[in-house]
């Protein structure tokens, strides 16, 4: 059964230096509060896994948390590039970051294979691209048709962290809206943390609701607003202005560092 913990205790207990960590959420429900807590606790040498690094990994990379990055699209959605991500890859600042990149279809299938505890998934993809050589995929032949397909290796992170709208006191979690690969990430990981907007007495199945039962989750932590500047459908709105602000502000290393010091490191996690 999932243990209800404070966010700081959960991060302290679940995430260790050197771990492979997937913080998932596809545009929606991105677990910013948890990522910030990882930064505050000074974790280092993490392998960060995420389809769309988004501002969250831009922040974590810029703060030197990551040794390695596994991803499929490192942009600021609808705005442009990610400057800390670029600076790390182009200029090794604040430290060199090793990268492994995939397509979205590849990453999604890697999570699905991980959730199934299979060593791989098969798909059509990567064919003819230079990604094939830069990635970790392999051709595989269909025994029935002879067609050459692509095998992608399963993702099995040490820890998966996702955000959801709500949990009950037993640690059952419900999310609705764009589900991304959150369920797959939780089921693929060895340990998992779900942060939630609110804890309720009883989950009422919502339209489009997906329930992840407590017994496949390690820890649940309440973190209201924990997906901001991303959003939790029905409860908070996406802060599109912040995404635009980030594009300007984060171009400069010093400005970035000051912003993080003031807005992330300086913020004591409110006691709950």
């Amino acid at each position, binding site marked *: 059964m999932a243990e209800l913990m404070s966010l700081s205790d959960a991060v302290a207990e679940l995430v260790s230096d050197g771990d492979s960590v997937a913080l998932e959420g*596809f*545009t*929606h429900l991105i677990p910013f509060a948890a990522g910030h807590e990882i930064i505050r606790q000074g974790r280092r040498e993490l392998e960060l896994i995420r*389809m*769309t690094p988004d501002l969250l990994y831009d922040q974590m990379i810029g703060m030197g948390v990551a040794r390695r990055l596994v*991803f*499929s*699209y*490192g*942009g600021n*959605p*609808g*705005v442009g*590039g*990610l400057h800390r*991500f*670029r600076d790390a*890859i*182009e200029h090794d600042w604040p430290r060199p970051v090793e990268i492994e*990149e*995939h*397509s*979205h*279809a590849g990453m*999604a*299938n890697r*999570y*699905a294979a991980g959730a199934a505890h299979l060593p791989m998934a098969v*798909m*059509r*993809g*990567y*064919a*003819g*691209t*230079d*990604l094939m050589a*830069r990635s970790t995929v392999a051709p595989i032949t269909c025994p029935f048709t002879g*067609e*050459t397909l692509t095998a992608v290796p399963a993702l099995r992170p040490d820890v998966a962290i996702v955000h959801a709208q709500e949990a009950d006191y037993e640690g059952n979690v419900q999310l609705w*809206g*764009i*589900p*991304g*690969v959150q*369920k*797959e990430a939780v089921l693929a990981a060895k340990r998992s943390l779900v942060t939630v907007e609110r804890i309720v007495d009883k989950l009422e199945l919502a339209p*489009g609701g997906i329930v992840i039962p407590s017994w496949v989750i390690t820890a649940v932590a309440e973190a209201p607003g924990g997906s901001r500047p991303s*959003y939790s*459908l029905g409860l908070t*709105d*996406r802060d*599109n202005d912040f*995404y*635009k602000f980030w594009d300007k502000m984060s171009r400069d290393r010093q400005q970035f560092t000051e912003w993080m010091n003031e807005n992330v490191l300086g913020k004591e996690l409110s006691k709950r």
Partner: protein
Amino acid sequence: MTVTMPEVSAGEVQTIVAARRLRHTKTVFIGVGRPSTAALLARMVHNPELILVYESGTIGAKPFHIPLSIGDGELAETADAIVSVPEMFNYWIGPGRIDVAFLGAAQIDRHANLNSTVIGDYAHPKTRLPGAGGAPEIAASCGEVIVIAPHAKRTFVEKLDFVTTVGHGTGPGSRERLGFAGRGPTAVITDLGVLEPDPATCELVLTQIHPGVEAGGVREETGWELRVAEELKTTEPPTDEELGKLRELLER
């Protein structure tokens, strides 16, 4: 009729031309930015039944505002169905259920192959770009691909620094050899005109120029010896309705 309108920008023409391409399309796969605007415009002007599919998993979204991200709340709230990312790629994109996909790129070559990964050397890049996202599989499987890109020499290059997405590969037969079901790029719509692949060679040819643009100017902004179609068309100017609706959309 058109005299009442203020001057039309090249970007507006590009968006309007892209929207027109969706007149008879059933389903379109779109990213954010100009493609999304074009698809919304097409729903307003040409094709109210057009079904918008975003890779966030929202199928049949009907946003009133141009979304900033492919996963904005309005897309989820107005969608006919929402599916997970694995399902989106495995059950919807892979089988070729989507008729037209709009894609962008930082570099494009004469066979409409795309680079959105890196400028310069992969290990020591001059510019690190966002990466593949959904593009490789979208371009392989959707019915056809329409590329939307700004027309400039650094974009239309002789050789890609990185092949992120295969368009027509090295020419005829490439897509078949790779097992791709979709027809691949059928048009590249720029702020100067429209390029379409020659059916015989799959090489992009300038087939249409926007009002006020010269073919020579387009060739100058292209990094290879761009061929010009014998019957070069000129883009029909935006109608009042197109321009009015586009501006209305952008101001919402």
